[in-house]
């Protein structure tokens, strides 16, 4: 098998995923009624990334062959999809939504930063401990729960940062702490995986090889099981950390470049203490 062949044949048109993504777009179209092109584009992009992560060769490789690709998948689910989807929501829609007292109550609880942080962090760490990770690989049902956990907790996590109603977002200082601490958690997990013993994720050492792509990966791409696990850990450690860092920098940059509004009063000719 060649790389091109893998890209062509590695698609796994899992109906539940297709239906899920379809429903998402349908609901968005009917309920949110996108009016601004930018928001529409962002939401669709989020949906496409979701689709890409779950049905493209990324998924086939992740499930059987490469731990590192599985990490790419998880990082897409956690760091790319939810922010894009949230950014696609319009302010008007959310305002309308939150007028309902029950929804407003749920939002109030779920978007509490500490809870969201802990839920996202705990979910991410939980599913990457070898015991649960391997269970998810072995049972499709568990795997679906895993991915849903990621999507839901990550949406909770990004909500206070990207809230469509800007006044409800975290203040800069809190946002920096919120993001930085999360990146540290990611880093620790990434470092642990990078240096963990090779047997921690046994499924990738001798893959079942149902696609017949093993020789391609080992020989043509030259990725050994050791490299694979290291790469997976490193992806979570550095590039994922960079996503958090970029978010921090973006927030600080935005805040810094907002002009501050001063009341216009004639500047006092305050006596300077020249002595």
């Amino acid at each position, binding site marked *: 098998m060649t790389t091109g062949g893998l890209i062509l044949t590695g698609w796994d048109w899992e109906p539940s995923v297709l239906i899920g993504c379809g429903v998402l777009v349908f609901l968005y179209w009917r309920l949110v009624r996108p009016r601004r092109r930018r928001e529409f584009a962002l939401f669709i992009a989020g949906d496409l990334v979701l689709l890409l992560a779950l049905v493209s060769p990324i998924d086939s490789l992740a499930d059987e062959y490469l731990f590192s690709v599985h990490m790419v998948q998880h990082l897409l689910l956690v760091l790319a999809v939810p922010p894009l989807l949230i950014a696609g929501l319009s302010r008007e829609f959310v305002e309308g939504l939150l007028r309902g007292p029950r929804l407003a109550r749920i939002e109030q609880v779920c978007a509490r930063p500490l809870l969201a942080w802990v839920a996202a962090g705990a979910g991410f760490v939980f599913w990457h401990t070898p015991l649960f990770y391997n269970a998810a690989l072995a049972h499709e049902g568990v795997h679906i729960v895993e991915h849903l956990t990621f999507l839901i907790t990550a949406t909770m996590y990004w909500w206070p940062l990207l809230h469509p109603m800007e006044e409800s977002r975290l203040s800069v200082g809190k946002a920096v702490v919120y993001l930085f601490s999360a990146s540290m958690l990611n880093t620790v997990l990434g470092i642990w995986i990078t240096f963990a013993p090779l047997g921690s994720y046994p499924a990738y050492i001798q893959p079942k090889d149902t696609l017949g792509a093993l020789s391609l*990966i*080992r*020989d043509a*791409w*030259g*990725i*050994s*099981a050791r*490299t694979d696990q290291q790469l997976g850990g490193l992806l979570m450690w550095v590039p994922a950390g960079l996503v958090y860092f970029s978010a921090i920098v973006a927030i600080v940059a935005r805040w810094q*470049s907002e002009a501050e509004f001063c009341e216009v009063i004639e500047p006092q000719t305050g006596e300077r203490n020249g002595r």
Partner: protein
Amino acid sequence: MRQVTSALESHSPLQHGILHVTIVTLVIMFLIMVLVFVLLVAASLRYRQGRRPGEPDQNFGNTKLELAWTALPLLLLVCLFILTVIAMRESDPPVASASGADPPPDIVAVGHQFWWEFRYPAEGFVTANEMHIPAGRRLLLRIEGFDVIHDFWVPVLGRKMDAIPGQPNEMFFEASEPGEYGGTCAEFCGAEHAWMRILVIAQAENDFQLWIRQQQSLPPAPSEPEAERGAQIFRTTSCGVCHAVNGVSSGRLGPDLTHVASRQTLAAGRLVNNPVNLEAWIADPDKYKPGSFMPNAALSEPDLSALVRYLETLR
């Protein structure tokens, strides 16, 4: 003894990629430097005080311009990164194939305070500070640290690699044509770090095989009485505790001396190997390499010259 030690020369296919990416990078960096310099000088000349009256226009910035000089370097660095990854693969190909087969090393280089031990496991002999390799053949080199961290570095033949106790490293090693290439320990390792030089002698395949056979053989037993007496001294004093001479002693703490007289240098590049220097070195190692672990054996003048006579027979 003229050795080429410049990283801007290449005598190995493994160094080609490094050299290429080095030159490309240095040129790019130089151009950016020139750009900055020109801008700075232009700003300094054009906007000297006094060319216009009053305070100049207060320009608070231009987001588009600033984004441009953020994005352009980023783009440039992405290209540089791709070049980097290509050059890494080219100049340091993976040692073990990804499916897991791990070939045995051809040569094991062990860094000691303050000399290099070179083992040829397949051929079954050990030498020091001077590594012979067949030109044009790619060898697998394993690098180990005996005591502290050293670093094996022969610039014209490719990358450097640390010699770490408890964590052996492996890399490929090759010289494209016969010649003598200088190198050195590049990680600070103690008092005599400066004198821990490496000499790599790349030979045509035939010469290399000859050298192998010579190294494998036992040195001839000393025939003249003076040398014989020297051998006696070697055995009776403490030389053999640290130094091995095949068939005579088996010390491993110092360089193997089985064929010491056939080497070009003494004390890891400190002195040219000739009888006079050898005698001076043994008489007072501290004079030449203070801090090395070679003790002063305090031999009498005649004993010393007998010992040197004996060592000169170890070819």
